[in-house]
């Protein structure tokens, strides 16, 4: 009964986390790919002279009036920090911590187990190493490019 309840709770929490993660990823993808960035089309600093009507670029009669959009580059603008992503990461780490705590508590309630060794019965100073050999087999070299941390500076 207890195991079932715990399993259900775990499954439910994990499902919630995955569902929220998936939803958040979908929304972010839609915003990034489909909807154009709001600031790129509208210049809020520009004042409209009296007597003139404000024409949306998208509705301009002459396509030539539409200024060429500068190619957006992620390096040009500082990367925005998403609080949704941060919350999700915190939740996932929190769940992992909780899982570890619960499993350790559960195992502490079942301390009866067979011993695997006899270290307590080894006579002190009785060990005499009679043969010792270390043979080199092979070596591998792996490489990794160091990321420059001052890219945005």
């Amino acid at each position: 009964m207890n195991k079932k309840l715990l399993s259900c709770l775990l499954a439910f929490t994990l499902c919630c986390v995955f569902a929220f993660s998936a939803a958040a990823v979908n929304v972010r993808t839609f915003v990034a790919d489909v909807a154009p960035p709001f600031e790129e089309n509208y210049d809020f600093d520009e004042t409209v002279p009296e007597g003139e009507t404000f024409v949306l670029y998208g509705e301009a009669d002459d396509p030539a009036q539409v200024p060429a959009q500068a190619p957006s580059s992620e390096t040009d603008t500082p990367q925005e920090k998403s609080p949704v992503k941060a919350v999700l990461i915190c939740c996932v780490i929190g769940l992992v911590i909780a899982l570890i705590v619960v499993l350790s508590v559960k195992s502490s309630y079942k301390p009866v187990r067979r011993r695997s060794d006899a270290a307590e019965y080894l006579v002190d100073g009785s060990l005499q190493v009679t043969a010792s050999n270390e043979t080199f087999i092979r070596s591998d070299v792996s490489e990794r490019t160091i990321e420059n941390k001052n890219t945005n500076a």
Partner: protein
Amino acid sequence: MAELMDYKCPACSGALEFDPATQKMLCPFCGSSYDMEELREKDAQAGEWTSAKAEEWDDGNVAVYRCESCGGEIVGDETTAATACPFCGNPVVMAGKVSGEFKPEFVLPFQLEKKEAEQKLKQYLGKKKFAPGAFLRENRIKEIRGLYVPVWLYDSDIHAAASFEATRKRTWTQGDTEYTETSYYDVYREGDMSFANVPVDGSTKMPEDLLESVEPFDFGKAVPFQTAYLAGYLADKYDVSMETGAARVNERMQKSAEDTLRKTVKNFDSVNSRSTQIQLLRGVAKYVLYPVWMLNTVYRGETYTFAMNGQSGKFVGNVPVDGGKLGGLFAGVAVGSAAVLFVLGKLLGMI
């Protein structure tokens, strides 16, 4: 006919029991106490102490004795070596079960009393906050038994050989590239070592994991076996042979030999075991009785057994876990740690 032994107080004829606190034989009726050495001398002078031939008949695995004190029937199985009359409580020892090939060489006398076992259980359960409330509130000790468990102790000299795979890492930087060189080595070690008094459960009635969980016992406090130590306690004779127990002790020694040889492999970043072989150079086993307090409780029809080392007081036992409480802990820790992480992230400007 089997020989039932009980120890009568010379002063009042009450049944004597071994007292862990004083390490003497104590009469619970008149308070007289007798030194074990004094008792050993009297043991030699037959007749001073009661050593009666009791009726016994075997019915398969069951042996029935007649209590010399009240005439009641004492039922034991073929391994029962000491018990008490269920009618008058008179402690008796089935002398035939602790003699000849079944005579233990040593006994570790109880050093802790029954009341200490009860206190330990309360302390132990007091720390188990996630046990079901009903289990903690309604916990009733169904039975407390002071049991002398038959144990084989093995002294062994072994020769062990082990091979390991070890790695050593070296890291350097050139330009904007970091290089890591991992060197692999075959490591081989051989050595001799000795083990003393490695215990193996000699009774099929005593769960092996429970006995091993209350280890270690201090064999330095063992005394030559004397039947009187069993008075007032339960005892079994062994029904696991020395040869059968050797397989278990080899298993434990092999693991320790591997760990010990692994410790001699130094200056490596990782060491993984490949194989270990041990060869027994000398092996001697002795038959000993170990003191264990056994406590049984029942919860929802299931029996929970706890054990306490009768020497050191080490207490173990599995306890049920309340799913609701554990779920609450899970939710609390998850929410709490997520909140702490979020706040930390904000404070450090990471979010």
